[in-house]
């Protein structure tokens, strides 16, 4: 390699690497943008079983049940337009309760139940999952508004 051309070659290689990285990021982020679902999105678009998503909504009042093993919770998540059954095994956050907002990470099983591996609830006023910030629940109409 001639000395004169080396800098040019290095610059081109760096450019190619950056463009490659940009394309990679763009494709990965396109999937990621389709990462958060409200129950209405689930009904409208459908989510294939096993695909990792975040499901956000409100825990329907009266739907929260604890199984006899003491660690499995069953509850329904709603956004006012649609309702999705969900199940979670684990230690729920302290502020996870009926009538409050929740973001659940997990995937749907074959029967259409959302199997959550992680629950994000509002921890305190200083720490809140991003998607929960835009959620407002209207007590009168039982409508959950999700600003996105």
């Amino acid at each position, binding site marked *: 390699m001639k000395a004169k051309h080396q800098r040019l070659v290095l610059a081109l290689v760096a450019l190619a690497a*950056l463009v490659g*990285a940009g394309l990679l990021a763009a494709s990965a982020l396109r999937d990621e943008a389709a990462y958060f679902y409200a129950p209405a999105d689930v009904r409208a678009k459908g989510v294939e079983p096993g695909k990792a998503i975040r499901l956000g909504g409100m825990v329907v009042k009266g739907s929260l049940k604890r199984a006899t093993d*003491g660690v499995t919770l069953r509850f329904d998540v709603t956004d006012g337009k649609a309702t999705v059954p969900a199940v979670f095994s684990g230690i729920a956050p302290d502020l996870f309760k009926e009538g409050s907002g929740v973001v659940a990470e997990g995937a749907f099983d074959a029967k259409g139940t959302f199997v959550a591996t992680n629950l994000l609830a509002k921890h305190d006023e200083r720490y809140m999952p991003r998607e929960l910030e835009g959620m407002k629940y209207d007590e009168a109409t039982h409508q959950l508004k999700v*600003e996105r």
Partner: protein
Amino acid sequence: MIAEAGLAALWFAAALALLQLVLVAMGLTGRKDELLAAVRPVAVAQGLLTALAFAALVTLFLRSDMSVLLVVTNSHSMKPWLYKFAGTWGNHEGSMLLWVTVMGVAGAAVALFERALRRDTHMATLGAQAAISLGFYAFLLFSSNPFARISPAPADGQGLNPLLQDPGLAFHPPTLYLGYVGLSVAFSFAVGALLTRRVDSAFARAMRPWVLAAWVLLTLGITAGSYWAYYELGWGGWWFWDPVENASLMPWLAATALLHSVTVLATRDALRAWTVMLAVVAFSMSMVGTFLVRSGILTSVHAFAVDPERGSFILALLAIYIGGALALFGWRIGTVREGEPFELVSRETMLVVNNLLLSVILGLVLVGTLYPLLTEAFGHKVSVGAPYFDRIAGPIALGLMVAMAAGPLMRWRRDSAAAAGRRLLVPAAVLIVAAVVVGLLAWGRIGILPYLGLVIALATAVASVTPLWRRSLRRTPLFTWGMVIAHLGCAVSLAGMASDSAFTVEKLVAARPGDVIETAGWRLRFVQILPRAGDNWTALQADVEASRGGGSPTMLHPQARFFASPPTPTTEAALLTRWDGQLYVVLGQEADAGRWQMRIWWKPFVTLIWLGGFLIALGGALALVGRERRGWVLKWRARRAVA
């Protein structure tokens, strides 16, 4: 009085920074040596004043002086003294004061100890350091005054976020900041060298120890932070791709690339423009990180306050410094001669590969971290989580490990492919054997990334010690040892990550006192559950007796704590460390009458993650001492030759 003295010290330090900048500018342009002679004392005085201001704030916190607003909002007289002390930087204003202090002290250190650099470049470097400091003094004094008083003084303070009330707070932020802000020195060196047109191998040799020192501290800070999050949050994870973690990872990636390219420049006089660029990027990433964390645009345990004014202030500083440095780079880079050429098969090429891969990871992490902010500007709330980062960073990091294994076994400038191949024979054989053995043992039970991680960790561990093969260990220079140990640390850490994600066993139960839980060869007996109280918290504590293989049992005490001020529940996980892994027990809520939720993990070899991080930092420290010591020996010999 102490608060006023601290504030005065800050103002004086800011004035000295301005003076330092003016002295350098007038001295260098007008070639006035008498002005330049004053620069070093001014820089040292500035460093001392910042240290004084910081000491003043620490004193106020230790005394629980409730007439100071910051102490009221972030401390409480009932807090143990360690958290009063460490609580000094557990808030926005205090942490920015720590930032400014580190910057001032680092500037003083450059003034005092830097001897290798040409005088004009040294002066320009100190001028650049003063210019960056000025912006952060302004930020502190105009929008984040830590010494503001409150009148009338309340009876007691509001307390510190309980998640931060941990010995980790005393170690993690200061180390991280030393590394983070230490990179400002590299930035100033780059600006100084561009201004005086001295980008060459002598400049790189002078900059290298500063980069190494900052990098070692950054590595330690990140390692400590990861372990802290691991045991304090009680989620069993050691890295969450939280934007704030990314904010510390990005400068580390840039600094790691810089560390390697500065070595190429110092030894081979190649990659000049690239090295200068990386030095600018590394500290820019520190500033971007600070912007993300301190502006309050992110919600996180690290984001102490939401204040748009502060966010705009830091954004303006970012634009000025990064934009200014890049403009200077564009203006002056034409005058930087092209460095020495090298062949395709050479150590330089491998280091270029290392730099490219690190930069690509850096770019991808940056995009993933900023993307939610960009989309929010267009009205969409999106989280970018672990799936994105794991998917993109994982494979590239594995490629990086391969380059790391091969690089040190290649010769500088040119190498024959056949000879390099022979040197790589043993690691390649280990790679194949490991691939087959791990494949046979665990195929189908573990994912593809953990599988590749385990195999590559084994091969790179062997490759990283291969440079010592057939060398006299006693005569191997210390910096070669440093490289070997740091690279070995990467392999060790990777092995821990892969083992944790491949082999962790999780068990979730609802148990009542007297129950016995068996998991992963462990036998845990839930003895009892009792209330406990600390200085500023109450807790329910479970006593769990753990044993395995008939060995003597150990008592574990996981707690569910409740802090009174501010009122917050936290979980205190109980950890039992054995040579082959950690048992991690978390106490949950009461499931129903008399039964308690308990989450138990057995994490084989998880501790290797942080052991590896420590080895990486140790390697860096050895390399630093090795290079410096060689300098001392050479100087001593030269002096003796003269005598």
